């Protein structure tokens, strides 16, 4: 009985402004992120002098740029808060397409990470093969035969480019 009364009870009035605040904060997030980058730039630029006598110092341009980024970021955040229409960014669109690959970000970034980690020991050709495998999986390749063929083809292409175009100093093969 009590439960049914609770179900009919309207939402607490206090929740509406809270929800509005969360929505406003979400809309302001890109502008606030720009402000944060501007603050980081300013902190870095502050270590360099803006003027050397009457001459421009190494920090002037960076300090001006940082202030500009902070100001533009704040303006953008304020503008987005005042406008109530939702910001549709990449996050909004995730899953919209039939072939959307949710894990493509970590997989593609992982491919570059693996390439960077193993290149010094395994050489360009094998590193490229590993990166190709990861990138193909991240791109949604589910057919094992196609995956193997893609990796083999790209390994051959890397070896071909390495032998034909790159200078002889390029580390193509494992350092044994």
């Amino acid at each position, binding site marked *: 009985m009590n439960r049914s009364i609770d179900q009919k009870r309207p939402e607490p009035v206090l929740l509406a402004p809270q929800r509005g605040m969360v929505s406003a904060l979400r809309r302001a*997030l*890109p502008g606030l*992120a*720009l402000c944060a*980058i*501007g603050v980081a*730039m300013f902190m870095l630029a502050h270590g360099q002098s803006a003027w050397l006598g009457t*001459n*421009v*110092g*190494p*920090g002037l*341009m*960076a300090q001006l*740029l940082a202030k*500009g*980024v902070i100001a*533009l970021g704040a*303006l*953008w955040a304020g503008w987005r808060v005042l406008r109530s229409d939702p*910001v*549709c*960014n*990449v996050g909004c*669109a*995730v*899953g*919209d*397409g039939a*072939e*959307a*690959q949710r894990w*493509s*970000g970590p997989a*593609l*970034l992982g*491919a*570059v*990470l693996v*390439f*960077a980690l193993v*290149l010094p020991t395994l050489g*360009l050709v094998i*590193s*490229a093969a590993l*990166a*190709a*495998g990861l*990138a*193909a999986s991240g*791109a949604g*390749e589910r057919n094992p035969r196609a995956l193997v063929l893609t*990796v083999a083809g*790209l390994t051959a*292409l*890397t070896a071909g*480019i390495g032998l034909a175009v*790159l*200078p002889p100093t*390029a580390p193509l093969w494992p350092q044994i």
Partner: protein
Amino acid sequence: MDLAAWAAGFALVLTPETLLLCVLGALLGTLVGVLPGIGPAATLALLLPLTFALEPAGAIIMLAAIYYGAQYGGSTTSILLNVPGECSGVVTAMDGHKMALQGRAGPAIAVAALSSLFAGLVTAVLIATLAVPLSGMTTAIAPAGLVGLIALGLFAAAVISPGPVLPALALILIGAGLGLVGTDLAGGQPRFTLGLPELRDGIGFVPLVMGIFGLAELIRALETGGRPERIRLARWPWPTRADLRAGWLPTLRGTAVGSALGVIPGASTLLAALAARGLESGFATKDRPLGSGAVAGVAAPEAANNAAAQAALVPLLTLGLPGSPVMAVLAGALMIHAIMPGPGFIAQNPDLFGALMASLIVGNIILVVLNLPFAGVWASLLRIPFRRLVPLIIVISLIGVHSVQNSLFDVWLMLGFGVFGWVLLRLGLEPTPLVLGFILGPAFEEYLRRTLLFSRGDPSVLLTDPVSSTSIALIVGASIWIIWQRTKNAALASR
């Protein structure tokens, strides 16, 4: 240059040996330039040793052909894969890649080639007839004028970039800040390097652009499923009459803008491409709006960047000032062959100058004749399912990034910029302006410094210099116009 000099130049270029060098240079340049990340300057540097054994005229003609080939290859990757091979390709990709996604990659590549050809021919004649008087005019532009021009370029970059103007401006400033990382040219001290010795030479363009375009944009396309798995290509792989009609006026305007900006030392091909695209936004496009796969969005920047690239020969040959990395490599190549570019070059080497001008014309024609039939072949790359194209782009980008300087650090930088670009995209911010700011920012600082040095710290010179004050007036006027337009649109929408 009179008719006799033209005839002598063509007589030298149209020998079988020189023609062969031209064809070989154009082919090699295209093959290497098509690798994302390896732009014309890097291609020239890579293939420079091939010319050591040649006569000076043959070497320079081959280098010029390699350069057009690389430029053409760079445009192809911008259009097909949205991975610009060089900085001005960022502007071409805005509409060129959209055309490719609509199945019109062949026409886009062909329009790029034809616009470049037209601009190349016109600029070659312009250089040959007006090089000496033009060089005198360009030196009249003071550093303050260049500050104004670059500021106008940065503003144009924000206006033409996809997405709203305010965050685009902020990202341009962030990009300009990234461009400042490295050794301060004035003081010789490292700045913003976070103590990393690898950053003393600054952040490379290739890892930045590969991180943002080769990685972050790919992830976006995969995450959103926004790019079709297979692209159906148009049956006719070349431009239609409608495409040509839509492209010829933008090509003319792009050529005019590019050749005017190219002769100014320090003004880059990117600035020319940006200015040409910015100019096009003031005209009605004949096919579809700019930014949605308009022919004008390919024709104008391609004509402008080719015209600017060739016009940059004017300050190099007449004043000895290489206005771009490509011109610096060409200057180096000339010096290897004991030829000093600078005042007196044309008077002392009339045959070589004539041959170079003739080679600009012959080389551009050879390039288009060789490559136009292959526009459809390049476009057919897009028939490969996207999930199989992704590993190809990743692997070629990784090879490109690592090979430019044989540096593993550049791969780490690419990863860092990939993550940064991905975060920006998830926040709903378009990262393209960041790359444009990165290119133009350091030049802006350099000329601002010179301006304030000459004026003893007085910034009012920016308002008294005619070029600078005109640029500032254009920026202010355009800002007011944009705000007025947006307010009017918002008012109409709320009714």
